[in-house]
């Protein structure tokens, strides 16, 4: 039969085909299909014989004829032979792509994805459409498996499969009206959702998908499904008919997850989409002010009776939040600034509709509870994404306790109803319980096994309350066996037997790319183990984030060696050629990039425990593999390894010496210096992490190390980093017509500075900031109105994002001032007035915060500067403070040092809002972000702690003192505390000989108004500030 086929094929190859009767061609293609279905070896041979080119010829040769047909017939094209022939050709492609990753390179080389998309755009015939989508899906799914392969990174298959036009075509199909029970249409919906799920991998692709109507369309389907399942009694206009099979709903939820993951804005786009808003406003409850009945307290009482268990959550009188770790309650004082970074978000978006988000979360919980297995997991995934995105803006809105309480209720609801579900799924995966014996059930089990841990991690990441809930549900107990099992050798599928001895008689490299099949990628069994391992590590990293108890439990489960083993990449010689010769890569041989990233994250969070750092982690020898990963080719791995290094270089870490001996100083310094100005965000993140690690290295190090590191970095470079690029930011702000309307901080109504950019502040004297929440990725916390970004707002959900002339941001500042400055009465009526929620404006502000490149660059800059300043601060800290300062004076020069410090304290610009402001006449200065001010003032403290002559040097810097003064009334208490500490150091009397100088210093301080500022702080709202101020005043009085 093969021979007859070959005969047909050869007569009908390339040139001859068009001339063959179409009918005969269709028959030949059908025969071809029957020949290769289920026979992977024959597929390979066919590709070698050039079948791909021929198929592309068949599919695209029709373009001319179909074009004319399309113009004269509106309905579905008649089932002529040409269509049948296309059907068959598409089926052959389907079958080829099913053969796995090896067939993807030839299919790509022949441009098959594009051909399929073109075909999809032209045809309306349901059968051909389904077949085309199926072929596309087969290609995409094999493609995604190939991307996880650690093999050649430069392969052409790394490009995105979907194009803008392709997305339009898909969305057109989704939008076409459904006829009830049409099998083909239902299948198409599912295939489209699956295609989107897998291809939405890059940020650019996700953004494209988010801009297309696809996201809203999926949301529509989900809402329709919920109405049909009577979760919500809906009285609005009839929506589209719901997807009829539960599988389709799951696929659509996965697709939504894929699109929205990684962006707060996109997540908001999803849950604020019109249908989902209508779902809760047009329901039985009818009016929007009844929507609280959807919340936790009323258990989603959408149909009159609660569909979820009712939760009674006591209201807290105050809006305290559990900060810090249980092991170090005192840390709370340092850490409660931790998430302030998001507060600006909160203030401008405080119109965020808490009833709506609570309803959405309850609804997703209800969906999860109504489903089983993988579907349930996907629903939980969606819930986690929504909850994380909401949290980004709901924090720290203490002025509305009702709002706070509702947020607490949501969190509690997820802790009680959501997390245990996820933990249960992890348990199922861990115990290998199967939900059935048929193929779909087995597939379901496999997906649960691969993804359950990941979803749990996503759900609890960043919420200590949820982490505790997960551990209470036994999560650690179930995750650890999964991690261990991922190292077990798996029986790999044995190769097929062939009657012909050698398949490749020709040298494969001489074949054209469309005939040469590629590597088969990792065996599916190994890939499965990798995915399980990656998930388990993610989950452990998330659980070990905050609680020492959890870290201990993880250690006791004996998985630290597994983390160590997971830090090993596949051997460099790994290639497909080796495997042909019989050497098979199993799960024990290494880890894929995704696993390496997860392992670094796990090592990072585990290393936050001081005791583990000094015991289990040293014993496991975790430093060495991490150091090796610093040199990994993938920049993402480098970054993750650097992050993990940060904690290993702490003063009390026993691994510090080893790492220094390995040459970590040189590596980190070169990493920090690698990217030039204007480099991408990724590069700056590496710089931040490297500087962070070096900063830790500086604290309590021997003098030689300090000097050597400084030398390696170069003082010129360091000073350049601290000051240099801020110039650009300034220019940007002052650039005419555009730019950022509100700078790094803005004054409020009372004329005080209000911080708008307020990233994570660091600790006190010795900066052991163990918590390095990525300052760039998520903390997009800045208010602005960038006209340029508005212009780019292609998707048309935006009016102007931030109308400068409107009072919005101004008002936001006011609200914030009532938060921070209790000295002022919560004044004007506008401050308490809550504007009517407008999802459009809200969305555009969320988007603006997240996506404007200038802001992102600026934030990256600030983070770098903060670390650089803290580097100097730690350099000066400790016994050899004075000699180090002398060293700096010698290298940089006193004038330059103080110039730079002054520069950090003076205003960076003038608030443009005041230019057209109605009420105020004076121009109000904008200061740099408080993190930078804290760091700068802390450096002053250290200088003041050096020798008396250094104190004298500092007190002689009149411009510096002048620039410093306004910060004593800074709204951020961390700044105020730092200021008073510095004064206390300055007025300290070293010995008797210093008394006269000390008195003179006090006079200087009095003269420039600093003493008065300290005295005013005696009545500060913050206890810490008051106590320091008291010491300060006493010292003044003793002089």
């Amino acid at each position, binding site marked *: *039969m*093969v021979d007859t086929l070959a005969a047909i094929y050869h007569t009908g190859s390339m040139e001859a085909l068009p001339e063959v009767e179409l009918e005969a061609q269709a028959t030949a293609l*059908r025969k071809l*299909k*029957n020949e290769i*279905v*289920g*026979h992977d*070896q024959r597929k390979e041979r066919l590709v070698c014989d050039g079948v791909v080119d021929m198929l592309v010829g068949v599919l695209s040769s029709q373009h001319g004829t179909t074009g004319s047909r399309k113009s004269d017939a509106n309905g579905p094209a008649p089932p002529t032979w040409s269509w049948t022939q296309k059907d068959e050709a598409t*089926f052959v492609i*389907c*079958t080829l792509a*099913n053969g796995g990753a090896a067939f993807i390179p030839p299919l790509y080389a022949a441009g098959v994805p594009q051909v399929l998309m073109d075909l999809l755009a032209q045809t309306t015939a349901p059968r051909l459409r389904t077949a085309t989508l*199926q072929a596309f899906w087969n290609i995409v799914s094999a493609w995604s498996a190939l991307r996880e392969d650690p093999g050649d990174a430069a392969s052409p298959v790394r490009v995105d499969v979907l194009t803008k036009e392709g997305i339009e075509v898909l969305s057109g199909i989704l939008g076409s009206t459904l006829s009830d*029970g049409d*099998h083909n249409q*239902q*299948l198409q919906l*599912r295939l489209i959702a699956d295609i989107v799920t897998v291809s939405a991998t890059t940020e650019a692709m996700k953004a494209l998908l988010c801009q297309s109507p696809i996201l809203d369309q999926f949301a529509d389907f989900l809402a329709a499904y919920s109405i049909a399942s009577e979760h919500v009694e809906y009285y609005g206009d009839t929506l589209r008919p719901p997807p009829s*099979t539960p*599988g*389709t709903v799951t696929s659509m939820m996965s697709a939504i997850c894929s699109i929205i993951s990684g962006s707060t804005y996109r997540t908001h786009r999803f849950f604020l989409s019109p249908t989902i808003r209508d779902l809760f406003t047009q329901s039985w409850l009818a009016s929007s002010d009844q929507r609280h009945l959807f919340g936790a307290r009323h258990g989603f009482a959408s149909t009159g009776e609660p569909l979820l268990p009712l939760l009674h959550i006591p209201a807290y009188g105050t809006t305290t939040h559990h900060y810090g770790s249980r092991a170090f309650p005192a840390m709370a004082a340092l850490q409660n600034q931790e998430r302030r970074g998001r507060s600006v978000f909160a203030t401008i978006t405080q119109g965020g509709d808490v009833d709506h988000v609570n309803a959405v979360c309850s609804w997703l919980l209800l969906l999860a509870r109504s489903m089983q297995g993988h579907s349930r997991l996907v629903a939980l995934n969606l819930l986690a994404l929504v909850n994380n995105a909401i949290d980004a803006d709901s924090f720290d809105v203490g002025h509305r306790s009702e709002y706070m309480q509702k947020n607490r209720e949501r969190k509690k609801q997820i802790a009680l109803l959501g997390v245990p579900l996820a933990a249960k799924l992890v348990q199922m995966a861990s115990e290998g319980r199967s939900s059935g014996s*048929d*193929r*779909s059930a087995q597939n379901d089990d496999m997906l649960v096994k691969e993804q359950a841990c990941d979803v749990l991690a996503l759900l609890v990441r960043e919420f200590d309350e949820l982490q505790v809930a997960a551990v209470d549900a036994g999560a650690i107990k179930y995750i650890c066996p999964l991690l261990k099992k991922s190292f077990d050798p798996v029986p790999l*599928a*044995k*190769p*097929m*037997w*062939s*009657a012909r001895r050698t398949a490749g008689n020709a040298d494969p490299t001489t074949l054209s790319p469309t005939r040469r099949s590629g590597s088969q990628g990792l065996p599916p069994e190994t890939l499965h183990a990798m995915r399980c391992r990656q998930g388990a590590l993610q989950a452990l990293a998330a659980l070990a984030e905050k609680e020492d108890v959890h870290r201990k439990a993880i250690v006791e489960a004996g998985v630290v060696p597994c983390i160590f083993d997971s830090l090993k990449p596949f051997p460099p010689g790994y290639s497909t050629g080796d495997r042909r010769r019989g050497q098979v890569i199993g799960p024990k041989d290494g880890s894929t990039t995704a696993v390496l990233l997860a392992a670094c994250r796990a090592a990072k969070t585990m290393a936050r425990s001081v005791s583990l750092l000094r015991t289990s982690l040293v014993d496991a020898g975790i430093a060495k593999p991490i150091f090796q990963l610093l040199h990994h080719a993938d920049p993402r791995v480098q970054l993750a390894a650097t992050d993990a290094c940060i904690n290993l270089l702490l003063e009390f870490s026993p691994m510090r010496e080893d790492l220094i001996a390995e040459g970590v100083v040189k590596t980190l310094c070169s990493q920090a210096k690698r990217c030039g100005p204007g480099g991408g965000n990724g590069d700056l993140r590496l710089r931040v992490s490297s500087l962070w690690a070096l900063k830790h290295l500086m604290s309590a190090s021997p003098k030689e190390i300090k000097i050597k590191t400084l030398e390696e970095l170069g003082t010129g470079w360091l000073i350049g980093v601290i000051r240099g690029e801020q110039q650009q930011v300034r220019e940007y702000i002052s650039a005419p017509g555009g730019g950022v309307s509100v700078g790094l901080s803005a004054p409020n109504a009372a004329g005080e500075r209000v911080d708008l950019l307020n990233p994570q502040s660091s600790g006190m004297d010795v900066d052991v900031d163990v918590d390095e929440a990525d300052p760039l990725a998520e903390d997009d916390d800045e208010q602005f109105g960038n006209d340029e970004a508005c212009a780019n707002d292609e998707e048309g959900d935006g009016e102007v994002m931030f109308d400068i002339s409107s009072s919005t941001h101004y008002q936001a500042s006011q609200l914030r001032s009532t938060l921070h400055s209790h000295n002022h009465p919560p004044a004007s009526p506008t401050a308490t007035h809550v504007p009517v929620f407008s999802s459009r404006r809200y969305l555009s502000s969320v988007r603006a915060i997240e996506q404007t490149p200038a802001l992102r660059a600026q934030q990256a800059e600030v983070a770098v500067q903060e670390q650089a300043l803290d580097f100097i601060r730690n350099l000066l800290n400790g016994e050899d403070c004075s000699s180090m300062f002398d060293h700096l004076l010698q290298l940089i020069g006193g004038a330059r040092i103080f110039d730079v410090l002054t520069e950090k304290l003076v205003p960076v610009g003038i608030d443009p809002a005041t230019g057209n402001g109605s009420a105020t006449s004076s121009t109000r200065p904008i200061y740099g972000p408080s993190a930078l001010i804290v760091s700068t003032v802390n450096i002053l403290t250290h200088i003041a702690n050096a020798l008396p002559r250094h104190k004298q040097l500092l007190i002689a810097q009149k411009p510096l003192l002048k620039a410093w003064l306004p910060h004593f009334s800074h709204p951020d208490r961390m700044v105020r505390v730092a200021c008073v500490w510095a004064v206390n150091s300055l007025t300290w009397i070293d010995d008797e000989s210093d008394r006269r100088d000390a008195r003179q210093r006090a006079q200087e301080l009095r003269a420039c108004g600093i003493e008065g500022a300290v005295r005013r702080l005696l009545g500060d709202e913050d206890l810490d500030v008051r106590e320091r101020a008291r010491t300060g005043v006493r010292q003044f009085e003793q002089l």
Partner: protein
Amino acid sequence: MRSTHASFTRKVEEMKPSKSDINWVIMDYLVSEGYPGAAEKFAQETNLPGPVDNESIRERVRVRNAIHGGRLDEAIELINEIDPEILDNNHLLHFHLLQLQLIEIIRTVLAKPGSSPAATDFLPAIKFATEQLSPRAPTDPKYQQALERTMALMIFPPEKMTPEFKELLDEELRRKVAVEVNRAILESRGERSEAKIRQLIKARAWAEQEARAAKVDLPAYVPLGLDAADEVGGVDGDAMVS
């Protein structure tokens, strides 16, 4: 004892499943098991809406008939016509069909009049096995064993075969594979792969087992009422007493 039985029977009597529900279950059975003609007639008699997609039922009937008739190549082509994914992804099912095809080839040779077939008569069978079945054989022991057994049919004369080989020649095997295929086709269309009534019967058996394990008072034998034997020969006659 009698009283508990009476109460059980009363409870059974009290449960009055609606006629339309029962009709729906019957219709579902006819559709998923592939009886398009019966389904249409039944729809007319009961005023139920007819099967939505009659063509898809007929497709499955054609496949089933082909398998029952031993025309496996035709069956495989028909399945590929419905959806090539089915066999391309389900290697086991594909293997079963090919195995059946091999058996049919051997069967024709064995059935030839004449005493014993010459070795050369088996050449097509061997060629078929080499090309179609053996590539898959080393990947899993179950394939290998199935192939070996099938090949053994060529060695033993039919009258000397042990039962395990005989059952390969039994037409029951065709029916078994046909059921598998029907299920796979239904699954590929995202429909339930089994008639609802099968699930109901399984659920009933499970419930009875659970109830007995929990020592709930039940009659010793609860007939299904499907077989005539059930009606008459209820073990202790309880069903008749009431």
